[in-house]
């Protein structure tokens, strides 16, 4: 959506540029030829007619618009480093649980207060409090590498929440992400996840009124909003 808007803006700018330049040149050209007429100068370098200028401008813009994408296609975008294949072969996962679900089965062992073998951190970002735990052990498929408790601490009444979990390379390149939302804003939500490779996990969470949330959803569903934390997972086992 953003890239489409950018292309549209660029095209509109180019049209205005061509039209504006042509109008200005038209006036300058008219002035110049009448100046020569007044001075009785009938020899001299022939001027480019406005039609020729417009044509050349349009062709130049079209050529530039074709060349730039072609060159990027051929040489690749040198500014953006290539993502290592290892990231594509790694596993990423996360789940979200309500407080009720956290009281069931094996989830009962986890708590917002303390989790043995995990380093606890609390971050208050705006009206959202993130209490998160990062595993101090090596990568283990059976246990989450990170646990994040998300709570709303603001004074304004809220009716819905949404969240998104984004996995990034250690160079901050997007790998994979997913999110959802709900209506129960009374307590916390718990997000647990894991990754088989060292990476960065971004957790977004936002709390809204119904109307505000509906408007936001209409605009752009793909861009995460809300408050954010970043967690560095540095636990993956070394390759054998």
């Amino acid at each position, binding site marked *: 959506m953003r890239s489409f808007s950018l292309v549209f803006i660029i095209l509109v700018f180019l049209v205005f540029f061509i039209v504006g330049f042509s109008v200005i040149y038209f006036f300058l050209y*008219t002035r110049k*030829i009448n100046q020569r007429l007044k001075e009785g100068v009938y020899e001299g370098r*022939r*001027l480019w*007619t*406005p039609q020729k200028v417009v044509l050349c401008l349009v062709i130049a813009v079209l050529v530039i618009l074709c060349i730039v994408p072609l060159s990027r296609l051929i040489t690749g975008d040198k500014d953006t480093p290539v993502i290592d294949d290892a990231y594509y072969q790694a596993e990423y996962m996360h789940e979200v649980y309500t407080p009720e679900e956290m009281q069931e089965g094996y989830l009962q062992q986890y708590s917002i207060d303390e989790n043995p073998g995990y380093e606890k951190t609390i971050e208050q970002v705006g009206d959202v409090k993130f209490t998160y735990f990062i595993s101090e052990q090596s990568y283990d498929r059976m246990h989450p590498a990170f646990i994040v408790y998300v709570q709303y601490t603001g004074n304004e009444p809220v009716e819905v929440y949404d969240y998104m979990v984004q996995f990034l390379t250690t160079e901050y390149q997007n790998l994979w992400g997913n999110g959802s939302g709900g209506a129960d804003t009374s307590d916390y939500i718990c997000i647990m996840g894991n990754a088989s490779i060292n990476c960065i996990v971004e957790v977004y969470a936002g709390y809204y009124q119904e109307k505000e949330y509906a408007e936001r959803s209409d605009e752009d569903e793909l861009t995460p909003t809300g408050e954010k934390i970043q967690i560095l997972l540095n636990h993956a086992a070394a390759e054998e």
Partner: protein
Amino acid sequence: MKIKLMVSDNSYEKLAAALTEKGIEIDEDADLILTERNQYINHLTGRGDGEIYRIGVADIICIESLSHDIFVYTSDGCYKVRERLRQLETLLDPEQFLRVSNAVIIARHQVKRIKPAMSSKYLLTMTDGRHVDVTRSYYNIFRDSFGI
């Protein structure tokens, strides 16, 4: 026998005297015309208000063809001439006159303003306020002539 002289001023008097002596009448309405090679005329003969006038080419603003008639416009008025536009094109000094369309010859020094159009044309404003179009066929000739 009647003859019309379309020659330069230098030759006119001499020729007129010689022809008159031979019994040949000089008449501006004559169908027989005597012209001079490699010389451009300084006067045209035209009819206006029922009278015949001798028009100096320096006074001409433009010459226009309308239907089958040729009109010469000066600051004093409008005169009808018998010559065709193509004929006038050869008789008038190309340094001073330029054909800008199938129907119009202009006097170059009588152009007051040039306005370009976006469609390979120019709109000329003459010294008497008259507007004349330079058509597409004569576009490049006009540009070369005026150096624009």
